[in-house]
């Protein structure tokens, strides 16, 4: 009986300890509630602590970031949220007009923004302003083109996109799993400008896409396409660019990328303040911080993916190697030979996603 009593005591002791530790753990979770918070809906390159922390400390605020993939998803998240849920939005530059028309982004004072220090080509006033009012500012850009291993692939071949469909590289290709740039690249290879993609020429693009899929080994997100390229699983990545090779540049110097004759896709991200945010000032301060040279350098070399900063002054905060990996000095040439992402309306977007799912499944 006494052994039993000891056992029960022990058990009660354990139970008490457990419940106390639960309470401690749970109270820990709720202590941060008092601080002011800023909610941002972003691409994954805005989630690094190193990027957010200086702003958080300077303004004594907690920046909450939620990452999304693709404008369609972001807009749906916003539609399904309540007004005031989001303060800052990072969105593909090409989709800013859409967001403005739907009343999602609010006006921001143009004179508060450092666009004078930007690469002129990426200011993209056509997209970021409407009727003379500024709604967003470009913060980062880069290219979706062809990445490859130059020791295994003839670099000359990569200058002509038609070679992707040739038998020579059959089964040595990976496709980046994001429908907009890859559909855009496919359109370019067919001589269709990204701005001219319509429901009429989608069947042609679909054919080419399916053919490319059958020549490829995998369709992967950032990590699996990177892994495949780094391990030699594949030699070519369609939709790749500096954002995938730059991170690996130190360890895998043989990885290269090129903008083919047919042209490449230029992606750009804009950042803006939500129209119904009740923290307009703080949100604007965050936009200003992100476009400042220091934050721009951090954003350019984020752990999720790299990309060129929109602000030229970020140069001072980047090392020579980083600039090399970003191809800082070749930008003039690249900018002239690249087109923007397709900007589909809802119906075309639906169609593109359907084609994409079909491609994945075949």
């Amino acid at each position, binding site marked *: 009986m006494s052994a039993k009593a000891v056992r029960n005591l022990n058990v009660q002791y354990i139970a008490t300890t457990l419940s106390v530790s639960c309470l401690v753990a749970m109270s820990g979770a709720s202590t941060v509630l008092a601080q002011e918070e800023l909610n941002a809906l972003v691409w994954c390159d805005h989630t690094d602590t190193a990027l957010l922390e200086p702003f958080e400390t300077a303004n004594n605020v907690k920046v909450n970031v939620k990452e999304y993939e693709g404008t369609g998803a972001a807009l749906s998240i916003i539609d399904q949220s309540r007004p005031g849920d989001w303060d800052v939005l990072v969105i593909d530059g090409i989709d800013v007009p859409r967001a403005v028309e739907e009343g999602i982004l609010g006006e921001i004072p143009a004179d508060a923004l450092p666009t004078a220090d930007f690469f002129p080509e990426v200011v993209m006033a056509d997209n970021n302003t409407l009727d003379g009012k500024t709604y967003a500012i470009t913060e980062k850009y880069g290219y979706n083109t062809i990445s490859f291993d130059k020791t295994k692939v003839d670099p000359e071949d990569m200058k002509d996109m038609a070679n992707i469909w040739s038998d020579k590289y059959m089964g040595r290709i990976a496709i980046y799993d994001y429908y907009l740039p890859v559909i855009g690249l496919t359109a370019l290879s067919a001589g269709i400008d990204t701005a001219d993609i319509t429901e009429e020429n989608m069947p042609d693009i679909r054919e080419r896409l399916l053919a490319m899929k059958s020549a490829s*080994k995998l369709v992967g997100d950032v990590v699996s396409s990177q892994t495949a390229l780094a391990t030699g699983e594949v030699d070519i990545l369609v939709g790749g660019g500096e954002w995938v090779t730059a991170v690996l540049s130190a360890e895998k110097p043989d990885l290269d990328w090129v903008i083919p004759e047919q042209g490449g896709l230029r992606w750009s991200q804009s950042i803006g303040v939500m129209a119904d945010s009740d923290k307009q000032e703080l949100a604007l301060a965050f936009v200003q911080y992100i476009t400042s040279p220091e934050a721009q350098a951090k954003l350019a070399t984020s752990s999720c993916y790299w990309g060129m900063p929109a602000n030229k002054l970020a140069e001072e905060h980047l090392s020579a190697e980083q600039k090399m990996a970003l191809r800082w000095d070749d930008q003039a040439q690249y900018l002239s030979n690249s087109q923007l992402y397709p900007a589909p309306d809802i119906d075309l977007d639906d169609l593109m996603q359907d084609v994409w799912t079909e491609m994945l499944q075949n």
Partner: protein
Amino acid sequence: MNADVSGNDDPRSAWFYVVPALLWTMAFFVVPFAFMAATSFASLVRRKITYTWDLGNYLEFFDKPYLLKGLFVSLEITLAVTFISVVLAYPLAWIIAERVPKRLQRAVLILAILPFWTSYVVRSYSWLLLFSSNGVINNALMGSGIISEPLQLASTTSATIIGFVHFFVMLLTLTIYSNLVQLSPNYKRAAMDLGANTFQTFWHVILPLTLPGIMVGAFLTFVLCIGDYITPQILGGNNELVLPQIIMLQLGRRADIPAAASMSIILMLVVTAVYLLCLRWLKMERT
């Protein structure tokens, strides 16, 4: 379940104990399920969920071959995984129960399910590392001269299946082992006394007796496998999508909850059908 009406406790207070759990299950399982079922008949109109009460999502699923294919890929992978896992796990469980000395069994069993305690996401990822062209498996095979060119292992349906089998072999070894040790040794002794050899004893006595246990384990494998997203997403290289991947695409790329809901309902109907089949089969076995 005998009633306890002795003592001074009012039996009506029994409700007090049961109601919280029932309420919880109603509020966070039954009601959400009903909502999801209702939402599967809605549609996304200009990105807002609109209750149109039609079969649009279901018709679209059966109308588009690449969506419907997801169901078949799911079934194919899940059936293969369930079959291979049972076939691999049964001998392992049997060897642990019959051949390994009693005092070591517990330790061996814990060793057999050790990877169960690594993070599920990370475990799939480590298979990715193993499968890659200059990963451990290809390096070992090429080093030993078995192959000269690296095998295409990563980003295939086979990779998904191997990743799954790894997990479910652990699970099934555990269930089958506990079934085997619960068998009374008398059965075996009786069979041996009647002149049966080890194989005959196993085939005619042990196997039929453990069959219901296997079926339960296999069904569990089926349910967990067909609903999983992580393993095919990490290992399958987006080459053939399973249904949960297509559901997650609906959610991640366009936040289309109604379409995702309708596919989930279809997934659940499939699981229910398999459950009923298992039940029927088990009943037939018994008679």
